[in-house]
């Protein structure tokens, strides 16, 4: 996944209301209309529509064409990329410890392996 797309996904996920909308869509077997999505929130339908636009741009949801209802559904691929990203934290640490090991070798004037 391109970094730009991942940034877009993260930006979309940065808002708790949008995350709650996604959680709602993940729970639901079917497409959900704006009105249904707006119900649990202290927000207007217009405000929820705005959030849906952000989620749609980030590829996290798709929306039906039906003019009035425009039902939303969850797209799983970007969420999987986020999960992968979290696992990359481990890789960041592994790389960091590789460099620490090399630094310790340099200080001690040793040659050879990484550990």
């Amino acid at each position: 996944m391109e970094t730009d797309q991942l940034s877009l996904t993260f930006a979309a996920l940065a808002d708790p209301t949008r995350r709650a909308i996604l959680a709602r869509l993940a729970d639901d077997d079917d497409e959900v209309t704006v009105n249904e999505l707006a119900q649990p929130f202290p927000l207007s339908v217009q405000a929820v529509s705005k959030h849906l636009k952000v989620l749609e741009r980030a590829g996290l949801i798709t929306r039906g064409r039906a003019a009035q209802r425009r039902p939303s559904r969850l797209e799983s691929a970007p969420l999987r990329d986020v999960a992968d990203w979290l696992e990359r934290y481990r890789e960041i640490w592994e790389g960091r410890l590789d460099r620490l090991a090399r630094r310790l070798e340099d200080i001690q004037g040793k040659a050879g392996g990484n550990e």
Partner: protein
Amino acid sequence: MSDQFEMAEHTIVIERELDAPRELVWRVWTDPDEVARWWGPEHFTTPREKIEFDLRPGGACRMTMVGPDGVEYANDGHFGIVEPPERLSFAQETTDNPMIESGETTVEFIDLGGARTKLVVTSRMICAEELIPMAHAGWSSQLDKLEVLLAG
């Protein structure tokens, strides 16, 4: 609903054995001059002038990482446990990612004898709760099922 949104924990544990005496490993981990040389992460730098350590419990632990594109990522936090040369912990109150609210890292320096040291790094992240099930393997298949369901 949004104000009921809860954060959850995600923990990773990484162990590494190093060919260096424990006191040296401690120093390289806690001296900003040294930290600037290895902290990274990959393709990032952590310039010496952007590291501020006040190495005592509650003392400041600030590191700004600079990405390959020059973008700066501030990590501001405090040291928790400072027990040279055995245990160190530091908490981050700000992170570079909107989904990760904060994190706490504990490092154990275990003397293996013969000038060898084992590090155990435990990094606990407080994340948006949806990230946790997503991070678990089961979630992908769950979403796959959902996809099939939606497609059908």
